[in-house]
């Protein structure tokens, strides 16, 4: 696992050095500079000591990712915390009992010599835990979305500014080699003028986690994503990821949003919508169209970037040109002969031919699509801790993707076109 990490990292560094030649590309990804720096405020010989708060599914994945590079990066998982017994026991197992284990995060924050924490609790707990951790002088990596409310998100951001501690939000796509290459190509003008964006995340499932037998009282603790007090459902759990990508690509943030939500299928006591659709407006009058559903997964998850000269499908790692380069003449001739021989001749037919999608294979955006962006973002966090600071663009991206996801929820609930109150601008 460590070998793989080193190979991946070498490839990644090669990519960063390529970006270094393009000031435009690097300006769009200032958080990557840290991978080129070799001198830090805290020496590489000194251990970076991390605490993990919330070891559910996502927390476990983050913990395992850090464990994969803990040795080469000189990182110690010094503490773990979860107030749900099975998660608590699982975290102890992952760390072979070496990390101090807590049920209450406040006890973890009292530990001396911790450098930072990784927070992956349910959404409604992000704000107060983050603020307490920043107050305790710790750097914070917090899973997306930032908080359940816009007020709490603002408080988190303000606290980060006040304490001058790092606040990194878990939008892993900003560390994805595919997305980096895509941004570099977009900035180079490969897609022409960006005029439209579409994204969707379609699943077919009830989004439920099984409860332990005979413990119905744990429903809201385990299935917190389904209840309004704890989550905005598809808005905060899925949309926020893709909205962050849209904002990053547009190099701006929306000016308003209209949205709709409906609960039409999973009528099992949940409160959040099982189908949502949103339309965001950007300062240049372009739009970002989004929908997320839970009853059909045929189209899966995708972000489509549409420009006058081409299109990109980021999840598929594909780029398509509006006018693909013509094949060599000899191949065109062979194709035409083949068509003349084998094509059937219609004798009268439809007077209108449907404008179906272009049937072209396209090219890959990036060759390095196998690298793990979650690991890279955590490695970056460790490096930022050594440096003692992180680029401000990271929390800003996290803040606005959360805030605009929550505004879409507000738009769906009120059926109004919603804008951001001036007091929440940062």
């Amino acid at each position, binding site marked *: 696992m460590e070998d793989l990490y080193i190979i991946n990292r070498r490839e990644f560094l090669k990519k960063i050095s390529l970006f270094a030649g393009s000031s435009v590309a690097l300006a769009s990804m200032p958080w990557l500079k840290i991978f080129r720096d070799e001198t830090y405020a805290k020496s590489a010989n000194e251990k970076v000591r991390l605490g993990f708060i919330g070891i559910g599914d996502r927390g476990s994945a983050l913990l395992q990712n850090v464990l994969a590079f803990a040795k080469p990066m000189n990182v110690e998982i010094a503490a773990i915390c979860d107030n749900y017994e099975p998660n608590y026991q699982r975290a102890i197992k992952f760390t072979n009992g070496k990390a101090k284990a807590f049920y209450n995060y406040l006890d973890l924050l009292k530990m001396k010599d911790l450098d930072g924490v990784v927070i992956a609790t349910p959404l409604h707990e992000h704000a107060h835990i983050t603020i307490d951790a920043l107050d305790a002088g710790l750097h914070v990596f917090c899973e997306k979305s930032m908080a359940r409310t816009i007020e709490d998100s603002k408080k988190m951001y303000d606290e980060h500014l006040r304490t001058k501690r790092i606040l990194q939000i878990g939008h892993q796509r900003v560390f994805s080699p595919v997305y980096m290459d895509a941004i570099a190509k977009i900035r180079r003008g490969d897609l022409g003028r960006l005029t439209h964006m579409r994204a969707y995340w379609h699943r077919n499932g009830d989004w439920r986690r099984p409860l332990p037998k005979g413990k119905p009282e744990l429903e809201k603790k385990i299935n917190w994503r389904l209840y309004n007090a704890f989550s905005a459902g598809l808005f905060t759990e899925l949309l926020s990821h893709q909205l962050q990508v849209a904002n990053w690509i547009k190099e701006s943030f929306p000016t308003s949003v209209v949205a709709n939500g409906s609960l039409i299928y999973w009528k099992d006591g949940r409160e959040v919508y099982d189908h949502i659709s949103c339309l965001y407006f950007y300062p240049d009058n372009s739009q970002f169209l989004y929908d997320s559903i839970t009853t059909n997964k045929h189209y899966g998850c995708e972000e489509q970037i549409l420009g006058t000269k081409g299109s990109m499908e980021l999840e598929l790692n594909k780029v398509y040109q509006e006018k693909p380069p*013509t094949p*060599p*003449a*000899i*191949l*065109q*001739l062979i194709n035409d002969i083949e068509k003349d021989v084998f094509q059937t001749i219609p004798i009268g037919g439809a007077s209108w031919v449907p404008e179906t999608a272009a049937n072209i294979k396209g090219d890959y955006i990036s060759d390095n699509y196998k690298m793990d962006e979650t690991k890279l973002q955590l490695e970056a966090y460790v490096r930022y801790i050594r440096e003692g600071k992180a680029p401000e663009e990271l929390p800003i991206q996290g803040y606005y993707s959360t805030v605009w996801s929550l505004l879409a929820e507000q738009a769906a609930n009120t059926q109004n076109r919603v804008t951001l109150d001036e007091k929440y601008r940062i």
Partner: protein
Amino acid sequence: MKDITISKKRIKTEVIVWLVCFCIAVLINVFAIINYKTNWVEIISQLHIVLLISVLIYFLFGMIRIITLAVARLFKSAKN
């Protein structure tokens, strides 16, 4: 097993036949470049496809030659 001997003359004839096929393939490429208004670089860059086409023409031509030969022999033996 009987040894098959290919004469020098036969080899020379076959090489000439294939060269004719190659020239025909090049001419097809030139026609395509003019017809589809593409770059003349394709004379060189698409040489691999031209070679393939020349081999294809050579085999097609070979089949015609074999059939012609077979029919001619059939007539000859019928006469005798």
